[in-house]
């Protein structure tokens, strides 16, 4: 039973891993912050599971970015070095 919740043509692309690494969080810390199992964070990061809207909004609030900066239906363009991610104040 795959954790994939969306059909292949509805793949949700994610930058959770990038934001987590940028904030210096472990999977366990991120999982505790948004109320999921740390393995669920791994599935979300690999795009194998599209989280609920509530978890997506919690992630956006934690990273202090709009939810569409974390999840998108189309692949994200590669980030340039000068495209800084807003850090939480």
């Amino acid at each position, binding site marked *: 039973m795959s954790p994939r919740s969306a059909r292949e043509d509805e793949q949700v692309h994610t930058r959770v*891993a*990038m934001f987590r690494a940028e904030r210096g969080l472990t999977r366990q810390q991120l999982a505790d912050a948004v109320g999921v199992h740390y393995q669920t964070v*791994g599935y979300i990061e690999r795009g*194998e599971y599209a989280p609920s809207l509530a978890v997506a909004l919690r992630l956006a609030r934690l990273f202090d970015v709009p939810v569409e900066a974390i999840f998108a239906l189309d692949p994200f363009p590669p980030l340039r070095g000068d495209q800084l991610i807003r850090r939480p104040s």
Partner: protein
Amino acid sequence: MTPQATGRDKREQMLDRVRTMTRGPIASRGRRQVYALGYLAAVGLAAVGPLAPRPAAALVTAAGVGLATALLVLLRRAIRWVADAPSEALDELFRRIQGECYTAAYQLVGALVVVCAAALLLVGGAPGSGGVPPQAAQAVAWLLLGVALGAPSVVTALTLPDAGPDDADDDAAGDGAAAAG
């Protein structure tokens, strides 16, 4: 503190304990398969016990029941009680997996009940058969009991997705760039 509040507090404490139990890593697929298939084999052993020659029948059944009990405990631990935990104690992904596994387990047990019932009706209802032998009825009862008790855990163990290679990695750098899309 009202009695209702006490009851709610106790339930919250219980859920906290279960959440702590479910936090750890889920065992590898190989180990889960060994426990799940071992449990089904032990249930089969318990079921064939009543059909064994008289002096050995009770011994075989007891061995099967003991082995099945031990393997079910190991199996539940291996899947971090995902199949048995109250849904409030699970996160959204494992709650969904639990629901899907219970549906599959219900279908499995239902199919087995249909097969067993049909077999008993055919054997017992055949002209001149003299009814279902008590040993056969006991065998079917052990089989159904074992499968019904363990089916959710077995299905969960066999279908839980594998963790990623670095899911347990505590390194904050992780694979951020790779998954950025």
